[in-house]
Every structure is written in structure tokens, then in C-alpha cells.
């Protein structure tokens, strides 16, 4: 049965429909595989075999009755940020140790309603703050990919590192992530996967631990562009419980995959060509342009002059929102409490013990930029710059249908490689992805090639708000042209 692990989601769903195997068999194989890879990769925080088998049996019953949902019987891995009823949901933070929600996040509920099977929770950077999955209270996640001929452990990227690592190792048919500055697309690029961040508001944030509410985007990791369209389809839709949920209809994105891209105008923004970009990445980007040209697209040089201000604006806005969102962790109603001499002392001890170093740094940064005397100079100015960045995109999308850029400025790096660097160096990982969070526009990363060390690299497609259809179309065209079939060597087996 272990060969089912190499199937894509679409192939597995087809196999279930044809009764080549049962959902229960799939679940059993995946639980066993998850338990086998976890000691080496540390990608799961919870593996729930009992629930997986129970849900899979229910799927088999529905398949037998001809009542299969869109994802019927497919085991999925869920980022620890999503509330799953009765299952530890800790945002990989000590402050939420042992927290078992009495409710289900809207997005995971949608997945279960379509018949998906819960396999487990995946490791992540604490409160999704990180780009290497090294800030987790559960320890770092290991990337299944290694440099050719090397046994050095690499990071899977972050913050959704466990979701990426598990899927890249062939365990689950898709996983959920959240993307606040690149936390789906960057790990997808580092692990040879497709990662999608839909338009802001497409996927409900309800029941997902909040980091920076105006920037947080739930979305999927998938093995193929088609799988990513199926998963995005299932996860999207209006939710009255999230006041920023987009109320319009969800179009059929699965149909968009495979449609011709002939005549589409693809913008190549010159500002994404940065100093010190590795040659492999510059080459791959140029190759991507050629692939789309060959598929009939028109290539247009565009300029997004505000690009360089996106990351600094992000590092004011995101910490500001985080300091406000994380104020709720005070040790009173849930989570861990460290008793102090009085109420204030209890708050302070609880938060000092419960939050890790990166989270504390961002909460302090956010508190500072929101404090009296600095609010206008930092926070309000950043919000104004944010609008200028959005206007950049709006201007570009009067000339083009989609933008093509690299996803990351480097391939995956070693565990601890940036331990002695300043926090800024880690932040620069998100330089190409953060702009789409600032503007709320849809963006995806598609695996497009390997670098000279044999590590995967991704290309990013960005389209205008609510135009995921074009994004999936272009993504599928890139996937076709790239023919990326490389898989990591199973050194952990």
C-alpha cells in the first residue's frame, strides 16, 4: 500500500472513486508513514490515528452510498494554528500548551464537510513568526530535501514548515498553512511544493490563532497545481463569523487548471531583481519568462517602485497587530499561568515564560510603534505606505494579467545557519512574498527547478484581487513547462 503515498490528491480521489483502495487503507498507510517520518523530520505535533481511521471509515460509507464530497477519503495535515476540536492547538507556543479547543475552525470544518480525513497537526514557527520553523516550542522541523551528496539538515522554511515537510516527504495529500508574509509560499519553494495564498478574505480566519489579522491568509500546500486548486476551492467561501470574509461567490478554479494562457499579458517587475540574487534563481526566472512566452503569453516589463518598502512596512504593521492580538494570552482564561505576587506580576511572569524570544521581540516592537508619541511616525506612516504599495499593484494590473517573480531570494539553508545573524537577515527571506500580503492579492509558488546543489526553487505568480482563476491557469502552464518531478531522497527511512 505504501505506493499510494506517491499519488497526487487528484489521483488518490480517482482511486477511491474507482475502489482501487479504501479510505481506511489510505488512512492506515498515512498514519504509519507519519509515525515513521516524524522522529527524523519533526513535522507533526499530533498524529491522530484513531480519528483518522474513524473519519476514513465514515468516508468509505459515504463513497459506498454515492455521497462522496470533493475531498472524500483524502488524509490531510493541518497546521497547528487551526483549531481542531478536541485536539491540542498550541500555535507551537508554550503559552498555549495543552489547549484543546471546544470548537472547529471554519476552514477545517469545510474540509471535513467535503470528506477530508484529519491526519494530524503540523509543526510551525511559534505563532507563525519565523521563516525557518526554528522558533517552534516543539523544536525545528527538518526539510526532507538535502544538498546533493550532503547530510546536513536544512530548514523547510516557515512558518508553515511542518505542513511543507510532511507533504514533501509524501505524507498526506495536502496540508493547510497560513501566510502572513510568505509562510506558505516560502516553505513551498523550499520543499518543491505548490503553495497558494488566495485573496485576503477568501478563506475565513475564524478559529485560526491570530497573528496579524489584516495580513493573515489561510491557504493550502499541494503536490500539483490541480491539487492546489481543489484544496483552495474547498477551503474558500463566505463565513459570517469572520467580518473580513469576502461575501462573493467562489468561482470554479479546478476548471481553470489546464486552460490556455495564450494572449495573457505577464508582467516582469524589475524591482524583484535584487542585488546578490543567486545566479540559479535569476536564471530560473528568465527561464519561466521563456516558458510562458512559448505558451503564447505576451511578456511586459513593469515597474512596482514601492516594492522595497513592503518589508519595512510589514515589520511595523505585523508586530503592531500581533502585539494587540497576543494581548489575550494573559494566563487567566486559557493557556499556561505562572503565579506571581499579584495580578500584574502574574501577567508579566506568564508572558515572559510563555512567549519565545522571537515572539517577545515582535510584541515589544509592536507595543513600541503603537505607543503614544510613536503611533503616527511609525504605524500610521506604514499604513500610508501600504496603500502606495497597493496602488503599485493596481497600476501594474492595468497593463498585465499576472506578474511572474522568484518566490524566494535563496534555496533552503541549514538549520542554525542564521542563528548568529541579526533578526533582519531572517526577515529578508520574505522580500518577494510579503508584497502580496500587504496588498491582499492572490499569489502562488510553483516548483520550477533545482539549483546547482539539487535543492528546489519556486517561481511566484501574482494576480489581481479575486482573480485566482488566472493565477491557477498560469501556474498550471508553468508546471507543464517546468515538468518538475524531482523528489527528495528518503534518507529518513
Amino acid at each position: 500500500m505504501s505506493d499510494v503515498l506517491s499519488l497526487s490528491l487528484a489521483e488518490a480521489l480517482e482511486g477511491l472513486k474507482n475502489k482501487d483502495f479504501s479510505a481506511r487503507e489510505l488512512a492506515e498507510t498515512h498514519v504509519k508513514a507519519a509515525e515513521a517520518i516524524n522522529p527524523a523530520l519533526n513535522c507533526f505535533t499530533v498524529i491522530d490515528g484513531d480519528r483518522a481511521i474513524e473519519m476514513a471509515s465514515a468516508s468509505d460509507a459515504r463513497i459506498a452510498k454515492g455521497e462522496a464530497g470533493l475531498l472524500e477519503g483524502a488524509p490531510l495535515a493541518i497546521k497547528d494554528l487551526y483549531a481542531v476540536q478536541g485536539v491540542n492547538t498550541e500555535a507551537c507556543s508554550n503559552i498555549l500548551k495543552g489547549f484543546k479547543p471546544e470548537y472547529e475552525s471554519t476552514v477545517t470544518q469545510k474540509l471535513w464537510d467535503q470528506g477530508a480525513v484529519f491526519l494530524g497537526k503540523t509543526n510551525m514557527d511559534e505563532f507563525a513568526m519565523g521563516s525557518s520553523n526554528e522558533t517552534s516550542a516543539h523544536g525545528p522541523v527538518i526539510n526532507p530535501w538535502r544538498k546533493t551528496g550532503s547530510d546536513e539538515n536544512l530548514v523547510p522554511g516557515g512558518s508553515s514548515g511542518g505542513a511543507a515537510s510532511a507533504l514533501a516527504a509524501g505524507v498526506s495529500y495536502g496540508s493547510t498553512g497560513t501566510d502572513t508574509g510568505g509562510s506558505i509560499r516560502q516553505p513551498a519553494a523550499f520543499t518543491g511544493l505548490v503553495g497558494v495564498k488566495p485573496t485576503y478574505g477568501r478563506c475565513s480566519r475564524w478559529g485560526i490563532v491570530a497573528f496579524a489579522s489584516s495580513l493573515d491568509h489561510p491557504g493550502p500546500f499541494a503536490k500539483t497545481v490541480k491539487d492546489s486548486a481543489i484544496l483552495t476551492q474547498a477551503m474558500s467561501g463566505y463565513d459570517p463569523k469572520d467580518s473580513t470574509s469576502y461575501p462573493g461567490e467562489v468561482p470554479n478554479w479546478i476548471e481553470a487548471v489546464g486552460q490556455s494562457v495564450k494572449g495573457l499579458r505577464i508582467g516582469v517587475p524589475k524591482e524583484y531583481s535584487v542585488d546578490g540574487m543567486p545566479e540559479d534563481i535569476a536564471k530560473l526566472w528568465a527561464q519561466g519568462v521563456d516558458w510562458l512566452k512559448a505558451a503564447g503569453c505576451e511578456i511586459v516589463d513593469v515597474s512596482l517602485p514601492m516594492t522595497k518598502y513592503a518589508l519595512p512596512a510589514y515589520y511595523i504593521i505585523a508586530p503592531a497587530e500581533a502585539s494587540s492580538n497576543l494581548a489575550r494570552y494573559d494566563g487567566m482564561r486559557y493557556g499556561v499561568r505562572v503565579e506571581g505576587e499579584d495580578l500584574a506580576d502574574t501577567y508579566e511572569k506568564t508572558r515572559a515564560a510563555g512567549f519565545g524570544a522571537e515572539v517577545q521581540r515582535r510584541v515589544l516592537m509592536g507595543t513600541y510603534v503603537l505607543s503614544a508619541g510613536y503611533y503616527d511616525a511609525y504605524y500610521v506612516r506604514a499604513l500610508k505606505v501600504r496603500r502606495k504599495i497597493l496602488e503599485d499593484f493596481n497600476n501594474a494590473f492595468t497593463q498585465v494579467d499576472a506578474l511572474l517573480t522568484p518566490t524566494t531570494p535563496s534555496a533552503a539553508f541549514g538549520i542554525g545557519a542564521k542563528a548568529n545573524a541579526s533578526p533582519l537577515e531572517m526577515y529578508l527571506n520574505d522580500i518577494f512574498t510579503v508584497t502580496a500580503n500587504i496588498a491582499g492579492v492572490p499569489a502562488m509558488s510553483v516548483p520550477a527547478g533545482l539549483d546547482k546543489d539539487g535543492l528546489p526553487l519556486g517561481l511566484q505568480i501574482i494576480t489581481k484581487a479575486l482573480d485566482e482563476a488566472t493565477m491557477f491557469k498560469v501556474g498550471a502552464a508553468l508546471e507543464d513547462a517546468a515538468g518538475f518531478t524531482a523528489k527528495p531522497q528518503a534518507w529518513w527511512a
Partner: protein
Amino acid sequence: MSVTTDEVRRIAKLARIAEPTARLEALTQELNGILDWVEQLGEVDVEGVEPMTTPVVTPLPMREDAITDGNVRDKVLKNAPNADAGFFVVPKSVE
């Protein structure tokens, strides 16, 4: 602008995080590194630009003013670090 160790102490107080004594110097330096870097936003002409608070503008949804949830006291208390007789138990805050 940059912060001093005293200011970092004050910010920690505002954020209700116990003073990071051991890391105070390092933390001050890290925060100043970030503040120096975000300083470049000063180059952007933002005269007359409206601050942007949400990326996709949607009308604020309205609903009937009806009770749609509730009667879940035990569920609410289930994850409390300390609960008793249907209440959260918290440190004394009023003398």
C-alpha cells in the same frame, strides 16, 4: 529614532512581559537594528495618502440582532488554568 535600555524596560512593562534582564542589552540592539531599517519609510512621500487598514474592501456585514450562541459555560471554562464552581479563578486585583 532609537531606543535606550530604559525605554525597552518601559515597553516591556507596557506589553506586560517581565523585564528581560539578561537579554536587555541584546534586545535593545536588535530593536534598534529593526528601527534603523524601517526608517527608510521616511523617504516615501505620503502626503494626502489615506492609511490603508484592509486590503480588500467589503461592506461591513449586518445581521439580525439575535442570540446565536451561548449556554456553553463549561466549554468556556474547560481550558482555564484555574476554575471553580463555574467561575475563572484569578489573582486578587481589588483590595
